[in-house]
């Protein structure tokens, strides 16, 4: 049985369709007005790296970040005067909280199984309180470890 939208109907004569849909497009996708280029400083990048820890302090990371910021800047065109921020679509409800009773646990073995370095019943970590090296030292630091 031919489908309702079968091939024989294409290309449709758009004018002849009793249309509810206005045939003229409403707005442009990604209309990016030229904005002053955000400069991502070395200091900012170091700071972000300490927070993000993704080791993206190279030209590619910077380029991505700058594009992302430029894209996000379009938000400022919107008038949000008097509008409250929305955390969740369920904000009008009281969400369920379990009673403070222990219902599961005692699965140390299963949990430790997934970790690559453990010792007795501990997850083993390298020494802490050592700050991440700054960008200039970065390159040599990585090379040392390899």
């Amino acid at each position: 049985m031919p489908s309702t939208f079968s091939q024989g109907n294409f290309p449709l004569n758009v004018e002849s369709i009793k249309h509810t849909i206005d045939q003229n497009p409403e707005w442009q996708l990604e209309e990016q007005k030229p904005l002053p280029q955000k400069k991502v400083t070395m200091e900012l990048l170091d700071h972000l790296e300490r927070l993000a820890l993704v080791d993206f302090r190279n030209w590619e990371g910077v380029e991505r970040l700058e594009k992302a910021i430029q894209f996000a800047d379009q938000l400022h065109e919107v008038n949000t005067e008097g509008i409250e921020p929305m955390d969740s679509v369920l904000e009008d409800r009281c969400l369920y909280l379990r009673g403070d009773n222990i219902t599961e646990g005692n699965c140390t073995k299963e949990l430790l199984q997934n970790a690559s370095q453990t010792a007795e019943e501990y997850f083993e970590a390298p020494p802490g309180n050592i700050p991440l090296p700054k960008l200039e030292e970065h390159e040599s630091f990585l090379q040392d470890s390899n």
Partner: protein
Amino acid sequence: MLRTALREVSTALKEGQVSPTELCQRCLSLIKATKFLNAYITVTEDTALRQAEESEKRYRRGQSLGDLDGIPVAVKDNFSTTGIETTCASNMLKGYIPPYSATVVQKLLDQGAVLIGKTNLDEFAMGSGSTDGIFGPVRNPWSYSKQYREKCGQNSHLENEDSSWLITGGSSGGSAAAVSSFTCFAALGSDTGGSTRNPAAHCGVVGLKPTYGLVSRHGLIPLVNSMDVPGILTRCVDDAATVLGVLAGHDPKDSTTVQDPFNPFKLPSVIDVSKLCIGIPKEYHIPGLSSETLAVWSKAADLFENAGARVIEVSLPHTCYSIVCYHVLCTAEVASNMARFDGLEYGHRSNMDKSTESMYAATRREGFNDVVRGRILSGNYFLLKQNYEKYFIKAQKVRRLIANDFVNVFSSGVDVLLTPTTLRDAVPYVEFIKEDNRTRSAQDDIFTQAANMSGLPAVSIPTALSEKGLPIGLQFVGRAFQELQLLTVAKWFEKQAKFPILQLQEMLDHADALSHQKISLSS
């Protein structure tokens, strides 16, 4: 048999026309024959056969668990599955074996469903093509369909096939391809910005995104906690309703599921749309929309009008800001959610051991692809003290404006919105990768994203074939928690559209000739 709907197969199983193990084996064979689609990351052959045997015992005793007993299903690889590797298509979780199953997975298993495998996706569900995972891209089964190849004058030389295959859309591309190519009867996807509906449209299957809070996210490795929803992919609307019936409902382990009682429903067989009001959001008509999709959308609107429904133009004025808003909120939540991957308790761990910080950074550099790392970096930028108000809070305010747009429309008498799902039909992989992930996501999520922003239920229905012989889907967006109404309208439309079945047999015969294994889609 593999092409039939869930309910029919279920009846066939109850009547003994086919056994669960037979069904399972056929699906497994078909998966092997369609391996080039790369839809599956893990095929759980042994556990599936075991589950099928258990199901068979139940059927023999006349004690089947329900409509899903013995039915092969697939699950996107960002849902935790006990004892089965769960990778999120990322090096970070390669080899990770969860000690628990996601609630939705457990619910399927409790109903006797047979888990046939974990499907491929974009890494951590970030993307709209299912091309950016470590296991490689997923191929759209329609690339090999009779419908497409006839239209595009393809000869059957394998060399030509290899460069012109099409993407599935994403990020639940593996699940969509699995359902589309008949290797399972239903699949779980996830939907944060359209990741279930987008590939559903491109692969010609039904993709349902339930209302936020209806289905548990416990065990779904999170992307954006305030927008993520488990998605359902099936070959018809009735099947989607069946699966929803099993999955929906409050979960004490997910405090963002609502406590309202959920009653599973069966969709009516006789549907009257004459009392409905269908809204057509004018802002969804954008220049990038293909003329074919526009024509299909127009025709659908006419269909409803001719059936007596009231079809009106409505306005969702903040539509054009939804992608930007999503960009900020998504990256911010991602920055937070991805912080758990530090190599200590699970997942990949770098050999770097000079300090915890450097180990974390190296682990994350090695474990995440550029898309993920880029989003984490951007997210952290928007969350900086000096930017918090300007970007994050601002985006949250814009989110409210977008959600309010829908509230206004639905309170003015509109029952369901009708929109395109994607801008156009599926593109070839070689074309898709010319633009970067962020650009593509921004383009491809345009129609689907706002439903996640507002938490509303939405479903993509395969509607027509394009001039190239590829699926075009249309989307219905409903009121919160009104899945019954949404799916009823969708079912009526599905009946009208009579979307053709994917004709893969020719391709499989070709594969047969190479592998000397007879695979048949017919009973």
